């Protein structure tokens, strides 16, 4: 993508009096040499794939390792029994985030956003918002452009790979993307979009990638929940006109530097953290005997 900084997108949007999402769409049109309609419809396809994946959640499935499966249904039951600590919106977000990540671990079809490991965050927030507030579909597609634009800047100026930058680069990026999308859907302005991004990202800085047995399961699935909830929390702060004291692009640069400082043993290599706990080692042994 042509943009390395969020403030660049905002200033181009303001100069041309166009919305944030349109700037991202136009950039995609130039990059891939496609029409605006084509670009928009490709994004709509991503939304539909997310909706389908959400609908086709199967609570009976378990991952190849057996570590993951069925938790989405537990959260759903809990919510339907009226026991939720949160309101409907947040409860549904939690549920959808687990469901999507479980589907991923069980080799179902999902949309990487930005990665497969973090695929639950953005759809959980978007699809719950759609159900609660009955937003027209085109608005959701535009929100996806906002999210994708933020993700592109993160990929350009930092990283969206756990192996490269730790989990802040995966769940952190997904959360930042979703936070911006929520602000857009709520009618927030461009400054609020990028400040929500910064706030969400700051809460995730330094997060390591230490999955058990090298599988996208533990802690990944449940971490999608906190990424999704964090997105809404930060969107609400931004909508209430709270700003990130550190400007958004400086936060992104911090994330890049922190990613470089995270030792290799905590970047998807299984050498430290949760991955070497006695329980994790036992699981690895059991898996190798399977």
């Amino acid at each position, binding site marked *: *993508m042509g943009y390395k900084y969020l403030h660049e997108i905002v200033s181009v949007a303001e100069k041309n009096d166009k919305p944030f999402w349109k700037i*991202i769409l136009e*950039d*995609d049109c130039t*990059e*891939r040499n496609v029409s605006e309609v084509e*670009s928009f419809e*490709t*994004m709509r*396809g*991503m939304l539909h*794939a997310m909706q389908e994946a959400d609908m086709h959640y199967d609570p009976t499935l378990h*991952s*190849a*390792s057996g570590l993951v499966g069925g938790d989405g249904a537990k959260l759903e039951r809990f919510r339907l029994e009226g026991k939720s600590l949160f309101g409907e919106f947040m409860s549904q977000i939690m549920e959808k985030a687990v469901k999507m990540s479980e*589907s*991923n*671990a*069980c*080799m*179902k*079809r*999902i*949309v*990487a*956003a*930005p*990665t*497969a*490991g973090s*695929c639950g965050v*953005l759809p959980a927030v978007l699809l719950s918002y759609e159900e609660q507030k009955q937003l027209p579909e085109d608005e959701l597609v535009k929100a*996806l452009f906002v*999210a*994708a*634009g933020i*993700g*592109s800047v993160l*990929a*350009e100026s930092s990283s*969206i*790979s756990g*192996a*490269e930058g730790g989990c802040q680069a995966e769940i952190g990026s997904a959360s930042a993307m979703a936070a911006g999308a929520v602000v857009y859907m709520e009618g927030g302005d461009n400054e609020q979009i990028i400040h929500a991004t910064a706030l969400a990202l700051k809460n995730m800085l330094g997060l390591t990638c230490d999955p058990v*047995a*090298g*599988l*996208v*399961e533990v802690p990944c699935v449940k971490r999608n929940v906190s990424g999704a909830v964090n997105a809404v929390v930060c969107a609400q702060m931004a909508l209430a006109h709270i700003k990130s004291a550190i400007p958004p692009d400086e936060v992104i640069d911090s994330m890049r530097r922190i990613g470089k400082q995270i030792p290799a043993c905590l970047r998807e290599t*299984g050498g430290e953290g949760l991955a070497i706990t006695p329980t994790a080692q036992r699981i690895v042994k059991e*898996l190798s005997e*399977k």
Partner: protein
Amino acid sequence: MGLFDILGPVMVGPSSSHTAGAVKIGYVSRRLMGEEIVEAKILLYGSFLATGKGHGTQLALVAGLLGMKPDDERIPHSLEIAKERGIKLSFGEAILKEAHPNSTQLLLVGKSGRKLEIVGESLGGSIINIAQIDGLSANFSGDYATLIVHNHDQPGHLAEVTSMLAHKSVNIAKMQLYRSNRGGNAVMVIECDQEIPQGAIQWLAHLEGIEKVTYLSLEES
């Protein structure tokens, strides 16, 4: 990275590198073979070997070899499908030197008896690199129509190929040359903006000093 590499791809989980990337390596290998594969020896290396089971890397590679793409919901059942089609499969460990941690070596036999050996790497985010073909360096992504020509290292072959491409109005996006040693085996890898007509590829294969021509077409057959 394009916008839909960030929001996307639509893929079967759990891992973009260990699953989606693996399907893509298999798929590109199948396209390079240019015919149905009847026998495949699938050797894994590094992290592919260590965590491949839980990520379905083997299922993914086989799915790709069957012609499936990363979003195909039949990927988890690829082994059964291969069995139904009577494809001979075997698995093992790849012995590679200084390879990327997510690598696989595929020894393939096609319907007509054609043999092909591929070393593929999954670089993350379902981006792949075909590192070797038949033991010689290649290094291409499979995102372009790609022509791979193995020839004797002697003057004139490059000109033959590029003038053929010019004649067919095919624009070269990227080109690489490798050789084992002076006067030995050489390979050119040419990534193109347009498809090369089948006839031109056959013509090339019959030229003196050209040992093997492999072509990756992106057109759906």
